[in-house]
């Protein structure tokens, strides 16, 4: 594989190897450019995926070199609800391995619907929020959704319903099994007049592009896929990038700064290698794809004489409008076993409440309801038993009775962009590399709490209609962080109100492109990955053309 000297000026330096970074690396290298990808995480089982462990204890307590997620004791972060609080140590964690979060995610791959790109125009703005139209339309993005679905490998069923995005081409492989949870959704939907559709997932159900089909092992979300059926960036895109022999992937490379010259252009990035030596990689263009929380943090860490408020931040918007995702639902017990431990996390969704219905429901927002029920054995034993003592004969009895008999309605609910929900630098706490830790400040808008309550109530309805003999509802819970972070470098046409333009180019810096969940203007229904992938394909297409035309200097 090709190796570049850090001192040699490469065409593109891509920071991050997840859903966005891998698309950029693949597209740019295939187009003929030299690319280096910096990933702070380790290699994982890249290229020998059969070694991915399904050992739950190991997964809970990974050896430092085997971890697939960031470690909040190293990638330290702090958390507070609002600016008047002092931030306390946080538990925010994200995929941290070659392939990023796509190596371990549940793999839901829903498109945004057309009206999710212009909600301000359609439904009006909402006081206390930054709801705005995206600077691009669904029609502009649609070809890239299709390209992403076919290149990455997405399973699903094209359904003609107003609750799913229209598609110019069906999914490349058929949907995952319905599972018993999905079958019960159908029972409920039949009674309540609701619409069940198969899950859409980056998990292949038939051999595709040289990879094997899912074997329904069940130890799925949170684990690496040992048969390469989960279409992670690490098995679908990065190998293609490497095969060009123009793309070098560097693991264990923790970027501390994107560097700039006197003219204000970026010149590359400084990172710590595995031995914590500082390395400067020179590049003509930097593509920042470090995720919705690390991307704004790195821009703020990259402040300089030229950019005292942080790189690409003349608007002051970097790190603002953070959306981490709202959830909540309900769980029911059923007479017969569901055996949800077989198969991936979910096989079906109820989609009738995806659209907005402010008049009917009394609040803005919507969500997707997913059917599931599996809790891994240790996690189930520790905290999954409902309404029972925590030890002794009563605990054991309930544990055995409830095992395999649960249906959980897990909802993915809209979250409004609020300016005061932010990622910034903690003034006191440092990470394990001595850099200012990430500080997350977030509390959902009052409207979001109404949305969560609505979805919890509908979940109870569904469980009852499905015939549950006992149902319990989640409490309404404020969001806390997590892997679905979006919105922190929002795109827009106005450089005073947004960080990047519609092609992800930083308004302030001509050779810096920011491509990941941070670009989102509004959050969709909290299933961000497919849209991140599609945006990246679109950004890459533009960038290749711009580099070839001279608009971007290569």
């Amino acid at each position: 594989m090709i190796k570049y000297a850090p001192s040699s000026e490469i065409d593109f330096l891509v920071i991050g190897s997840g859903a966005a970074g891998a698309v950029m690396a693949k597209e740019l290298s295939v187009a003929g450019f030299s690319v280096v990808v910096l990933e702070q995480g380790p290699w994982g089982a890249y290229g020998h995926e059969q070694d991915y462990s399904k050992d739950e204890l190991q997964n809970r307590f990974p050896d430092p070199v085997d971890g697939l997620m960031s470690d909040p004791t190293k990638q330290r972060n702090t958390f507070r609800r609002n600016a008047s609080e002092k931030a306390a140590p946080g538990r925010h964690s994200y995929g941290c391995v070659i392939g990023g979060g796509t190596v371990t995610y549940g793999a839901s791959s829903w498109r945004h619907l057309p009206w999710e790109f212009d909600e301000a125009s359609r439904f009006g703005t909402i006081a206390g929020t930054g709801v705005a139209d995206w600077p691009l339309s669904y029609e502009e993005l649609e070809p890239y959704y299709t390209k992403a679905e076919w290149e990455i490998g997405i399973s699903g069923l094209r359904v003609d319903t107003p609750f799913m995005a229209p598609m110019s081409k069906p999914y490349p492989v058929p949907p995952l099994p319905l599972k018993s949870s999905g079958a019960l959704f159908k029972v409920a939907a039949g009674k309540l007049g609701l619409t069940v559709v198969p899950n859409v997932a980056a998990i292949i159900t038939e051999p595709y592009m040289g990879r094997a089909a899912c074997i329904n092992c069940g130890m799925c979300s949170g684990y690496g896929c040992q048969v390469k059926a989960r279409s992670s960036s690490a098995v679908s895109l990065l190998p293609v990038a490497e095969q060009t022999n123009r793309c070098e992937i560097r693991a264990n490379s923790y970027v501390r700064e994107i560097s700039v010259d006197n003219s204000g252009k970026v010149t590359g990035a400084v990172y710590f290698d595995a031995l914590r030596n500082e390395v400067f990689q020179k590049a003509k263009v930097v593509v920042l794809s470090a995720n919705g929380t690390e991307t704004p943090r790195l821009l703020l860490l990259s402040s300089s004489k030229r950019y005292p408020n942080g790189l690409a931040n003349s608007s002051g918007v970097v790190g603002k409008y953070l959306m981490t995702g709202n959830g909540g639902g309900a769980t029911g017990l059923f007479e017969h076993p569901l055996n949800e431990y077989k198969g991936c996390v979910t096989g079906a969704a109820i989609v009738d409440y995806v659209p907005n219905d402010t008049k009917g429901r009394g609040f803005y927002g919507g969500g997707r309801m997913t059917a599931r029920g599996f809790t891994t054995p240790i996690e189930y034993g520790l905290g999954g038993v409902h309404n029972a003592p925590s030890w002794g004969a009563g605990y054991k009895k309930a544990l055995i009775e409830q095992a395999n008999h649960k249906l959980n309605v897990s909802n993915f609910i809209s979250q409004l962009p609020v300016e005061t929900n932010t990622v910034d630098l903690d003034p006191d706490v440092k990470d394990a590399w001595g850099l200012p830790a990430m500080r997350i400040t977030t509390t959902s808008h009052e409207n979001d709490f109404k949305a969560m309550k609505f979805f919890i109530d509908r979940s109870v309805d569904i469980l009852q209609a499905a015939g549950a003999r006992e149902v319990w509802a989640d409490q309404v819970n404020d969001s806390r962080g997590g892997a679905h972070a979006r919105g922190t470098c929002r795109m827009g046409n106005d450089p005073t109100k947004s960080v990047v333009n519609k092609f992800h180019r930083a308004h302030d810096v001509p050779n810096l492109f920011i491509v990941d969940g941070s670009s989102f203007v509004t959050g969709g229904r909290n299933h961000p990955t497919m849209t991140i992938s599609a945006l990246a394909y679109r950004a890459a297409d533009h960038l290749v053309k711009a580099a070839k035309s001279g608009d971007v200097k290569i």
Partner: protein
Amino acid sequence: MSAEESSRRKFLISSMTGVSTAWLATNWPAIVQAKEQSQNAADLAFFTPAQAAEIDAMSAQIFPSDDTPGAREAQVVYFIDLGLTTFARDAQPIYTQGFQDLQAKTRELFPDAKLFSKLTAAQQIQLLTAMEKTPFFKTVRDHTVMGMFANPKHGGNYNKVGWKLIGFDDELSFKPPFGYYDR
């Protein structure tokens, strides 16, 4: 036989009390094999035999054996012992302090008794209920549960008894239908 080996055997034999005769009858050969070969091969890594007997008694109340196997049959004490030198290394001080607290509580509630493991089941439950908010109890509780359901290679969940209780099959390859409702 060394003194240590002798007390180890006593511990293993004492740990057989509390299992229903019906279950023992069907599972005895496997238990003998487990105790005499599988786990005997490995020495205790952290506990003294006396400490192991105390933890074994605690976990047997946390996850009791009745018509079906519990912490004893899953050999949870070996899981915890091994765990305290591996993934749960940081919990060593909790156990070290916990043994003192357990002994103090035993004397406080039952002045005639010396060891928690020698109390009657009812007394043990009474004592653990009085301790259930302590970090020591919570840690032993969580470690007991982990020992029931972790991969057997970590020393517990012997013969997958924990997984069998909750109907979890670790085949890791399945074809639909998976459950009753998707048939």
